[in-house]
């Protein structure tokens, strides 16, 4: 029986959602006020359960409606009650069957509490949202509003009613969101064809994403006498089952096996010199960490677990991981991004014996929200992507009770085809648990396989490689996952309790690849007598969201909010009992074994038996070619600076999307839940200056802290990815140093997001893109070793392209470099805002003519060639000295120079402090071998490893003594005024005054673009 309850506001004054929608439609969609004069929102609940009239009334009145501000209608419409004329168009949006409906799930639990009885599995609540618009809008306008703002047709349905239609038939359908499809689950045998063509076709048709070499390897495995004998004995067909093929495809996927980073690469550099690289990962990333390891005794677990783990204090360790969730965020930006953040939270929960998430970081790369060219098919407008990704990460982080402490938003129109959504999380856990180091974990044969948390549905099967055309009204949505932070919060509270009680031996998360991936990895960790573990999974014991899933789907579904555990048999009862008391569903799916086989059963019958060594190590290596040819870009004309108005340029630069204030967006993240914050995203007199790095104090009664920061400069890839990577790394480090961190205590995380670098018909420039990847890795190695910076965790996403041929859009090669490190005393950390008039302003580090790919050049349509380069030796000396100065309390503020160069750094220092400054660029430290630089270059060059700092006059002597021998100089003074006055003493004109800009005008430019 379906009951429909509508809840609306009594008065428009409390309908802030309607106001927000109206504002968006006026401001972004350009609807006039006459066209759209009024809007109202209504929540719709469809209850599929048997209820008496009185019960319906109680549910509506006591659970669903606020008695002060809201009203309701049961099996009737609020619109009718208001009489006709209340709207001209009504739009109602609901989820497609099978899409995660979090509000529906909470409503269901509320109804159960209210009625005082448990509900049956088939008793469900589906929610929808209704919007009523008044104005002269047309049906076409209503369609636009429905598809471009209110509903994502991929996961939602909508219906539109005009005033006339409503007058003729004032009723809306009661719609069940139940997944209804008739399918009898079964295991199928798949015959492997003979020819390469047919093998490749099979891979394509089944969305296995396996190459021909891999298909051949699989064919050879099944053809071997050993395999045949084993299968005959086990009662399996000689040919693979669909379960087996899917497990192989998942385990060998680029996402899980990192085949490009493991490939053999023949690299030819610009001089024609050839080099054979066997695995970028081993050659550069792992090698760098091994080289640095002796200097970093605090490393505990690197690269092997879900996250990197380092020591924090004697009793506590910290973990960190950063992930990307790009393709899902392109399709369903809200759900995709939310899944990104709650997914990386689970990586932390699954690190070592379980780590408690204590902070999130997020970095997004989008095309301009003001993009005004046609949007390619199937893509959303970047403004919508921006808003929805932001909302997804905001809801995911806030609802999980994890503060978002650091991040950034990078804009480049090449992110139109694929937005990049990086989500990072740090965790805290006891170094020793039940007498054992907590970063180590093992599994014994006989341990039970437990899955806890959410249920399995068709969510995220085959990740995002699906075609949306495959979706129909009645079919469950199979590709998109929506996070459910509350189910996960319950799961994580339970997990940490179970951890402390010693109720499990091993934990890992279910992310990409689902159970197949988590249990495959866990089977590998099982210590069998032969050294090779295995597992026996009973797929029909896994709880499902709805009936009808095939066994292979159960195994590879990426349904969210699930963790897998290895539980010793004697702890099983206690584990299940605690789960019950915490309202967490946990299921015993089988056991880990020591026989070297990955086995899955369905309804008691063996459906999959694969040799563990073949499953994990049987995939053939890729052999790829890379060739580097440096590009040559045009430079501005020789008389370029003569025609520039530097003040106008400087103010315009503050409005550049990569520089302007992101406050209105970042303020919507909870920055400080858990009470650890020491340096927040916003600092300064009015808490609106962008901090360089976050500092948190994980242990409330200790002075030790953690610093977190990042660097990312994809635009430098247009010149050379070697320097792009070097600059990203340096930016991350100097951001940390700016608040008081010390090199040598920092660890790095690398997240690569690349366009497809494998040469093919659709990627004719694959050799260049792969060369760019090689060069970025070379830089990582060089600078990690130079800085003594070990890498502890990383991830790569290698197919960030859209479309084919001339319509192809590839992201610029992008490396996000994150650092985390320990700070001995958080009470000595500093922020970037100028603190007091009369303080001396210094610049540390050399300014060179490095305008190539700078924000300034970008604004004017140039790329140039002089990309910033990092001088690691002098930078490191400077960083150590600055750390000394901050520790001794000599420095009042420090801000790193990055996007937009020196001017941006000084302007932000002044704005954040609500103080003025007088600056003379003539004193700027410059390279001895360089000629005099034009003032514009001094202001806007993006030379690396530089800081703007302020200090009290009485500390000058001590400070200058400390920096003797390093490039630094005093360039001015903080003033109590409200102007930033910039001179260049060497200039002949106007006594050297270049311009003077008021704080007000700088603020206006800086805030304008994204203050909505």
């Amino acid at each position, binding site marked *: 029986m379906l009951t429909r309850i509508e809840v609306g506001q009594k008065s428009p004054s*409390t309908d*802030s*959602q309607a*106001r*927000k929608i109206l504002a968006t439609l006026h401001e972004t969609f350009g609807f006039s006020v006459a066209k759209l004069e009024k809007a109202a929102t209504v*929540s719709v609940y469809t209850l599929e359960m048997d209820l008496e009239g009185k019960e319906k009334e109680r549910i509506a009145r*006591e*659970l*669903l409606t*606020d*008695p*002060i*501000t809201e009203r309701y209608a049961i099996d009737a419409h609020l619109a009718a009650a208001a009489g006709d004329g209340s709207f001209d168009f009504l739009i109602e949006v609901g989820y497609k069957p099978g899409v995660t409906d*979090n*509000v529906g*799930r*909470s409503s269901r*639990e*509320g109804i159960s*509490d*209210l009625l005082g009885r448990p509900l049956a599995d088939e008793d469900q609540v589906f929610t929808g949202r209704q919007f009523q618009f008044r104005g002269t809008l047309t049906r076409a306008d209503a369609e636009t509003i429905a598809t471009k703002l209110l509903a994502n047709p991929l996961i939602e349905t909508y219906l539109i009613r005009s005033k006339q239609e409503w007058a003729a038939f004032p009723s809306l359908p009661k719609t069940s969101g139940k997944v209804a499809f008739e399918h009898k689950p079964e295991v199928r045998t798949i015959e492997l064809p003979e020819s390469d063509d047919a093998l490749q076709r099979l891979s394509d048709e089944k969305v296995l994403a396996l190459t021909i070499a891999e298909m051949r390897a699989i064919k050879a495995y099944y053809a071997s006498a050993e395999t045949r004998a084993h299968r005959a004995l086990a009662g399996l067909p000689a040919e693979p089952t669909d379960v087996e093929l899917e497990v192989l495809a998942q385990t060998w996927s680029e996402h899980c096996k990192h085949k490009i980073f493991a490939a053999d690469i023949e690299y030819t550099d610009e001089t024609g010199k050839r080099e054979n690289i066997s695995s970028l990962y081993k050659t550069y990333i792992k090698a760098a960490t091994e080289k640095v390891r002796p200097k970093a005794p605090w490393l505990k677990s690197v690269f092997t677990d879900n996250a990197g783990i380092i020591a924090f204090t004697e009793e506590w360790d910290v973990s960190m991981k950063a992930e990307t969730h790009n393709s899902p965020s392109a399709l369903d930006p809200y759900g995709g991004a939310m899944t990104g953040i709650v997914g990386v939270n689970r990586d932390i929960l699954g690190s070592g014996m379980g780590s408690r998430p204590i902070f999130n970081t997020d970095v997004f790369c989008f095309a301009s929200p003001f993009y005004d060219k046609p949007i390619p098919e199937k893509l959303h407008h970047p403004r919508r992507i921006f808003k929805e990704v932001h909302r997804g990460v*905001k809801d995911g982080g*806030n*609802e*999980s*009770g994890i503060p978002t402490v650091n991040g950034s938003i990078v804009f480049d129109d090449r992110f139109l085809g694929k937005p990049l959504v990086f989500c990072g999380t740090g965790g805290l856990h006891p170094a020793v648990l039940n007498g054992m180091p907590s970063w180590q974990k093992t599994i014994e044969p006989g341990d039970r396989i437990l899955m806890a948390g959410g249920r399995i549905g068709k969510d995220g099967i085959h990740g995002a490689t699906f075609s949306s055309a495959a979706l129909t009204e009645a079919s469950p949505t199979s590709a998109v996952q929506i996070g459910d*932070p*509350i189910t996960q*919060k*319950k799961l994580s*509270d339970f997990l940490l309790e179970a951890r402390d009680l010693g109720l499990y031996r091993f934990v890992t998360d279910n992310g990409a690849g689902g159970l197949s991936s988590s249990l495959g990895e866990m089977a590998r960790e099982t210590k069998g007598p032969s050294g090779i573990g295995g597992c026996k999974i009973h797929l029909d014991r896994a709880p499902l969201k709805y009936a009808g899933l095939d066994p292979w789907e159960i195994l590879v579904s990426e349904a969210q909010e699930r963790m897998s555990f290895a539980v010793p048999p004697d702890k099983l009862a206690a584990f299940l009992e605690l789960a019950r*008391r*915490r*309202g967490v569903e946990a299921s015993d799916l089988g056991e880990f074994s020591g026989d070297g086989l990955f086995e899955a059963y369905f309804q008691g019958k063996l459906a999959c038996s694969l040799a563990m060594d073949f499953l994990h190590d049987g995939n053939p290596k890729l052999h790829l070619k890379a060739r580097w040819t440096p590009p040559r870009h045009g430079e501005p004309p020789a008389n370029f600076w003569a025609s520039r108005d530097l003040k106008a340029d400087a103010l315009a630069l503050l409005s550049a999307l990569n520089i302007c204030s992101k406050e209105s967006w970042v*303020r*919507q*993240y*909870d*920055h*400080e*839940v*858990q*009470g*650890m*914050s*020491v340096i*927040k995203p916003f*600092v*300064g*007199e009015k*808490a609106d200056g962008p901090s360089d790095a976050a500092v948190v*104090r994980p242990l*409330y*009664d200790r002075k030790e802290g953690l610093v977190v920061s990042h660097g990312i400069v994809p635009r430098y890839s247009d010149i050379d990815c070697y320097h792009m990577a070097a600059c990203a790394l340096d930016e991350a480090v100097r951001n940390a140093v700016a608040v008081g961190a010390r090199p040598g205590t920092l660890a790095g995380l690398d997240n690569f997001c690349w366009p497809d670098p494998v040469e093919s018909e659709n990627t004719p420039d694959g050799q260049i893109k792969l060369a760019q990847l090689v060069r970025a890795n070379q830089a990582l190695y060089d600078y990690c070793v130079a800085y003594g910076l070990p890498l502890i965790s990383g991830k790569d996403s290698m197919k960030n392209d859209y479309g084919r041929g001339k319509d192809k859009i590839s992201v610029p090669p992008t490396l996000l470099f994150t650092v985390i490190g320990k700070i001995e005393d*958080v*009470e000595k*950390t*500093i*922020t970037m805002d100028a*603190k007091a008039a009369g303080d001396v302003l210094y610049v540390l580090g050399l300014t060179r003519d490095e305008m190539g790919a700078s924000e300034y050049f970008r604004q004017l349509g140039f790329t140039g060639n002089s990309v910033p380069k990092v001088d690691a030796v002098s930078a490191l000396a400077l960083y150590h000295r600055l750390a000394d100065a901050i520790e001794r309390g000599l420095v009042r503020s420090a801000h790193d120079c990055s996007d937009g160069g020196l001017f941006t750094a000084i302007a932000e220092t002044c704005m954040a402090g609500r103080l003025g400054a007088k600056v003379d660029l003539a004193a700027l430290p410059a390279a001895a071998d360089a000629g005099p630089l034009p003032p514009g270059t001094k202001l806007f060059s993006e030379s690396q490893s530089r800081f703007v700092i302020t200090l009290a006059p009485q500390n000058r002597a001590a400070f200058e003594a400390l920096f003797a021998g390093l490039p630094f100089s005093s360039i001015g003074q903080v003033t109590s005024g409200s102007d930033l006055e910039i001179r260049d003493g060497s200039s002949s004109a106007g006594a050297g005054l270049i311009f003077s800009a008021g704080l007000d005008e700088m603020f206006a430019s800086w805030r304008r673009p994204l203050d909505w």
Partner: protein
Amino acid sequence: MGKPRIAIITGYGINSDNELAHSFALAGGDPRRVHINDLIARKPALSEFDIIAVPGGFSFGDHIASGRVFANKLKHSLAEDLAKAADRKIPMIGICNGFQVLVKLGILPGAAPATVAQGTGEPAASGAFVQTTTLTYNDSGRFEDRWCHLSGVPASKSIWTRGIERIYLPIRHGEGKFIPKDAETLAALKRNGQISLRYCTSAGEDPGEGQAAYPLNPNGSVDHVAGISSSDGLIFGLMPHPEAHMLATNHPQWQKLGLKGEGEGIRIFRNAVDYVRGSAL
């Protein structure tokens, strides 16, 4: 007596429990984080505690409306124990989501003395909590994390805000706009000293009216109300987070101001701990 025992309720998306526990410990209490399901099973029972705290968070994801589903759970599984606790005259606090829960449950502001004092002088019958105010969507339509200046209302009966003229705390919510049922409800709250904390300027003045008050009044709350109490002053709820200012280094400008040690928020918790100690004498 020993240290007052404080129940910090957890579960279903509550998330500010660790820092709240530490804040109570700093204030001299003996906090214990207890899962709601354990309280329902009376292992332990609420009767074992001297102070009850409902922390901030996103119980049930703010689905339907903030605090509503958790309030519904309390109402149908713990109402009796809560009413007994109120009868025992022990202090209770709800912060942010906890405040939303207590308001939607009707424990706050609770029955006014005028309506219950018909002869008996006893509070309204247990379980007869009626919702007379609400906390709804911010006027801005968005969740915000923002530090706010607050002034203690001199006439407030709340034992939690005793001696507090001004305090600086962050708000972190999307549904913090306080609305009373009608003008009379607000007038009664004022009359009874149940308005405890109000948003103000850095100089302690009223933030102005309507849009002009934003962001000093961050959500559009009627009369700039940020916190209210029961008529006996024991039960207190507020949208800002005192536990988020437990350490001086939580203050956004602590470096510039040279702040060290304990944060301002602890004053609120110390008031309740001291009250319990005082009443035990």
